[in-house]
């Protein structure tokens, strides 16, 4: 399994186009924030202390969530490519178990996603440092790394299911582009959830990546929020948390971090089982 894992990781990083396209959604996101989305969101909110720092943290939380999906997606593209070129036959004809082969693809995509998210986290911290804001504490970094792992694992399992439907690289590439674009909307990253109509809000709350984003926001925005809401009424804070998707309101109460963690875990298990069942059925 380690062989396939290492090979896939090497392929991902060596293929400059895969690397670029898996980060394309992230690049687009950064450009959008830089050009107008950032101002748009900022203008829609009243002035309050540490506003820039808070929004920057919010943006990085969204970028982390998107990265965790698009990079695993790019890495699992190797599976589709191997299938379409016939490269998988060589593995099937070698004395390696099919489960180990599949495991290799999954583990490599998780690894790639993890590394890329860590890079984003590092960038975020560097930017906080250079803009004179507080950097994340050791405990926060530790928590973020935990959330990165969880969201990368759940993305990988969802994409594994998706991948089992694709036979050609072209179709998969097209699907990847669509996913990369939609992702920002479906996870309430381009536009905060509070500015969207009710039916979209429901979709966002169901979409697993939104929960990754929420968890990232809860951790990254912890310090700036303390500053922002030091003198503000509790209701204003509550409203902000809801509108920006730091917590989601389900059945009248705000979701707890534990709920989001459990939701992501459940998704990961469910989709893994579905993907494995589907792949087993296709084989015979």
């Amino acid at each position, binding site marked *: 399994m380690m*062989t396939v894992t290492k*090979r896939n990781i090497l*392929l991902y990083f*060596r293929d400059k186009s895969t690397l670029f396209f898996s980060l394309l959604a992230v690049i687009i996101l950064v450009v959008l924030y830089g050009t107008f989305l950032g101002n748009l969101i900022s203008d829609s909110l009243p002035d309050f202390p540490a506003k820039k720092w808070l929004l920057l943290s919010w943006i990085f939380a969204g970028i982390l969530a998107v990265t965790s999906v698009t990079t695993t997606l790019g890495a699992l593209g190797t599976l589709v490519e191997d299938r379409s*070129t016939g490269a998988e*036959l*060589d*593995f099937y*004809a070698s004395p390696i178990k099919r489960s180990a082969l599949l495991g290799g693809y999954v583990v490599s995509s998780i690894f790639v996603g993890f590394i890329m998210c860590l890079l984003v986290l590092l960038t975020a911290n560097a930017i906080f440092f250079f803009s004179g804001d507080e950097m994340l504490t050791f405990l926060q970094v530790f928590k973020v790394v935990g959330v990165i792992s969880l969201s990368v694992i759940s993305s990988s399992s969802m994409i594994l299911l998706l991948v089992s439907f694709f036979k050609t690289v072209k179709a998969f590439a097209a699907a990847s582009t669509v996913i990369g674009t939609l992702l920002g909307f479906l996870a309430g990253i381009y536009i905060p959830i509070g500015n969207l109509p009710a039916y979209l809000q429901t979709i966002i709350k169901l979409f697993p990546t939104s929960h990754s984003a929420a968890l990232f926001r809860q951790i990254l925005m912890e310090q700036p929020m303390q500053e922002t809401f030091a003198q503000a009424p509790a209701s204003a804070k509550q409203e902000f948390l809801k509108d920006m998707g730091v917590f989601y309101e389900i059945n009248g109460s705000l979701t707890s971090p534990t709920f989001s963690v459990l939701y992501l875990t459940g998704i990961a298990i469910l989709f893994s089982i579905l993907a494995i069942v589907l792949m087993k059925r296709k084989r*015979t």
Partner: protein
Amino acid sequence: MSKIIEVHHLCKSFGAVEAVKDVSFYVEEGSLFSFLGTNGAGKSTTISILLTLLKQDEGDVKVSGLTVGREDEAIRKEIGVVFQQSILDPLLTVKENLDYRARLYKMTKEERLAAIDRVATTVDISSIMKRRYGKLSGGQKRRVDIARALLHQPKILLLDEPTTGLDPQNRKQIWNTILQLQRETNMTVFLTTHYIEEAANSNFVVVMKEGEIIAKGTPHHLKSQYSADRLMIIAKNPAQLRSQLQTDKLVFTEEHSTVLIHLKKTTDAIVLLAKYEELIDSFEVQKSSLDDVFIQIHNGKDDMHHDDCYEA
């Protein structure tokens, strides 16, 4: 010699399409075995079953004494395969490719290095080890593919149309490599091809058509069984020769102004030539090539030829 591959009553269908219909054959250890047939004859399906990539519907298949379907993992260690299409990673170097594939056989680092060295020498790719596989020429890629198949020192080397898409010079080089391998290592070489001249080098040939074996034997045997040499005569007076042949009750065909007579043996021509010497302006004895044999086997016209051949 023992049988290293045994196939008994193999059947495989894909939905309504019967790709392989009740096929039986065996391959002797250390031999060069050719599987001949046009596209869609069922060669690839049979190979996929041998490689444990596909499950057969019916029939027993044994590879190196191991049963396909029960001892698949052990079988995979015994076979090295060169696929029709290039399956190595274009972005990795030749050496990286070989190293990663060698890992699939659970070799230690020393074993891998030794194995890569050995196969690189065998197929003469030492000079391109650091180049990316994707940047190599067709012939070089094929060499690397063969090197990959040899990494684990398999007992059987299986090549699926190894020379398809190569230019004549590369095709010849690849062939020399394959022949040399078989001679020097006493490895069993099993190949599929639709080039008849390639099958001519092998010890045994099986011809498949539409999922069935329609002929098998040594190339020599096939040739003598299915070939018919032709005597081509240009007569001084065609009408005279024609009537003479008719009175002698010889079967012949006419093409333009030449008369064609099928022969059982090449030497049978001597008798005919002596007999009609007076009437012959010029003549030629055409040996049938393996291509003719192949076409004849495929068209199923062999019976006719046998009845109509002249035998002295």
